[in-house]
């Protein structure tokens, strides 16, 4: 009894397959497939005076001693290095000492750079891995946070 049921199912299955093949067989040159869309999003252009976009031109034309020095084009932002290097620069924002990145969020291509639990300073940001020549622009958001 069981065997017969299975055989019947198999027959039905084959018939359905043949139908499908017949239906898709004589399709005349289908139009190109439409792939899933690629979404490109970006923040809207700046709309407050404390927010800005610094295009690559602004720092490409200046000699840069250290990668983090490109941030000197940000008004109110001071970058210094009180040692020979090998450690993160010292940052100052609006006159306040942000140490090695404490209280300032740094991102490269949306990747967070701050090391939250660094022993030397929470939020320690070493920008020496950055290659200034490959940067397209710097986005700056000075918020009340």
């Amino acid at each position: 009894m069981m065997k017969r049921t299975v055989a019947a199912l198999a027959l039905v299955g084959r018939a359905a397959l043949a139908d499908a093949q017949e239906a898709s067989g004589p399709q005349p040159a289908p139009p190109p497939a439409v792939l899933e869309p690629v979404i490109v999003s970006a923040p809207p252009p700046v709309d407050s005076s404390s927010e800005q976009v610094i295009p690559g031109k602004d720092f490409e034309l200046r000699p840069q001693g250290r990668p983090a020095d490109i941030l000197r084009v940000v008004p109110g932002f001071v970058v210094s290095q009180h040692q020979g290097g090998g450690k993160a620069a010292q940052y100052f924002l609006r006159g306040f000492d942000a140490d090695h990145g404490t209280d300032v969020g740094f991102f490269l291509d949306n990747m967070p750079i701050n090391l939250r639990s660094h022993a030397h300073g929470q939020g320690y940001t070493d920008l020496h891995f950055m290659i200034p020549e490959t940067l397209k622009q710097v986005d700056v958001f000075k918020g009340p946070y």
Partner: protein
Amino acid sequence: MGAATAPGGSGAVARSAPSSGTSGEGITQWARPRGGYQVHPSYPATARQARIEGTVRLLVHVLADGRVEEIRVEASAGHPDLDRAATDAVRQWRFEPARKGTEPVASWVILPVEFHLTR
């Protein structure tokens, strides 16, 4: 990424579908992006500054080896820089080629690229 067959009439596509390459007849599986080989377009600063958003439909000729041979803008996004950004990125893509049975063949696919300004 599903390789869905194109909905809609073939009229608009047929007009812009180039005569070179394959007709798409007999293709059992469409070309689709291959994981890890997609360069994401960047939002052009000019269009962003002008707050221009839009969708560009690219007609992409994918060779049997998965490389992109030619890209045509089927429908512009409304700003030449958006079209260019999309084209420049997709030109570097690698695809899983379309197949007729098991044999890889060249094919045209439509790839929409949407540009949105979001916070």
